[in-house]
């Protein structure tokens, strides 16, 4: 099973740290980072559906200008099911707002949520969980 990552976060520092942590866990993992969620969804839309076994985990921030995490998930859920299945959205946010948390977790497309900051431990356990679930 091949895993890849897409990090969507308006903070340059958070993108940088997330990339470094992912690469630290496994150098072979492919990581793309976007500071603009609108750009990310456009690229996901345009990507052809491949039939390989891979899965891409999207680490999604909630509060962003232009397109926030909620709007991103809404756009994502409009994609063909075949394409949606190639991705798994994990929200990565510093929010403590109970409304925001229950609202974002109510979307089918959202798998789970991690509280910022992302650490090696959090990412390692996420990767293990996903790999075990898939094998």
């Amino acid at each position, binding site marked *: 099973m091949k895993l890849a990552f897409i990090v969507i976060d308006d903070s*340059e520092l958070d993108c*940088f740290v997330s990339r470094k942590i992912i690469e630290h866990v496994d150098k072979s993992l492919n990581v793309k980072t976007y500071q603009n969620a609108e750009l990310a969804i456009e690229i996901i839309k345009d990507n052809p559906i491949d039939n390989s076994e891979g899965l891409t985990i999207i680490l999604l921030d909630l509060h962003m200008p232009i397109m926030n995490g909620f709007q991103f998930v809404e756009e994502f859920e409009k994609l063909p099911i075949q394409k949606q299945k190639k991705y798994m959205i994990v929200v990565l946010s510093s929010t403590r707002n109970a409304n925001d948390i229950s609202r974002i977790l109510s979307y089918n497309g959202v798998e789970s949520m991690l509280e910022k900051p992302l*650490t090696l431990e959090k990412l390692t356990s996420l990767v293990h969980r996903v790999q075990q679930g898939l094998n």
Partner: protein
Amino acid sequence: MSEKIKILYVDDEPDNLVGFKASLRLDYQVLTAINTQQALSCLNNHQDIKVVFCDQRMPNVTGVEFFEEIRISHPLPVRILITAYTDVESIINAINKGNIFRYVKKPWLESEIIAAIDEANKFYIANSMLFIKNEELQRAYNELNKFAYSVSHDIRAPLSGILGAINFAREIDDVEEMKEMMYLMEKSLKKLDTYIISMHDYYSLQRGELKIADVDFNKLMDELKAIYTVLSKTNNVEFNVTINQNEVFRSDEVPIRLIFNNLLSNAFKYLDKTRDNRSVDVTVEVQKGIATLHVKDTGVGILGSHIGEIFNLFYRANSQEAGSGFGLYNVKSALLKLNGQIEVNSVMHQGTTFKVTIPSI
């Protein structure tokens, strides 16, 4: 009093209406209605009616019943019942329920009516002031809610970013990689610092009083030029300032400086990195007591669909992480205090021009 108090009198006897109007029309603006339907349409058409007199004994509906109804639909006008000594029970009941401000007994004396209007008017003014204050408080409370929500996120987000970076730093051996991360951490902290300064501006604009003095735009711009010339050189942007002031201009320099600072820092922040001839032009023209400022850039521009929202608190139209969502809101608040106006004209990839006009005070 400059404007006559508007009152409404409801009675099913035309003679009473005529008599009432005749004796009071010089001092008050008197409207009359022969039944409650007419009275209701009158209340709907004249939202500024302050006092409603109503006869108790009318066919179909009693005065008490009518007042019970309009207490909900038209809460502001003060309700006074006109009645003979009958129905004492229902009147006492209505007064106790708060449906009636007071009553005048029939046949009424002009002095009684005038005294009643006088009291009712005082009550009306106090009530409507409360109403306005209440609305203001509600608005302030809503803004505070939004404020607490956004501020807690906007302060916590960079902190958790930096915390995450420090956490991961333990795993980094490469010095270059470390330096790169330090640079991004510094950027995050600077952003947080700017955010807190803007928050302070926000607070002082909301609470502060104006301090009016002579404003010398040449002197003001000299100070700003010193700051922005450095930015213009490092970003390779041509920076031109033209000032034309031959008359005294009186205003508060602090909000004016805040306006310039925000517009200029935006002009340099959202510059178009892909083009060669980049420029920021500032012109100030003071004429006939009005200062007209233009800040024109050749930057990335603002998308048409975002223009209507850029002055809203916490709105950010660009994904570059530099914005706090305070800047243009603060500009608008400053202009509100100075009685000024702002217009924006923007074309994507060509640039943005802000035009500000401020009257001398």
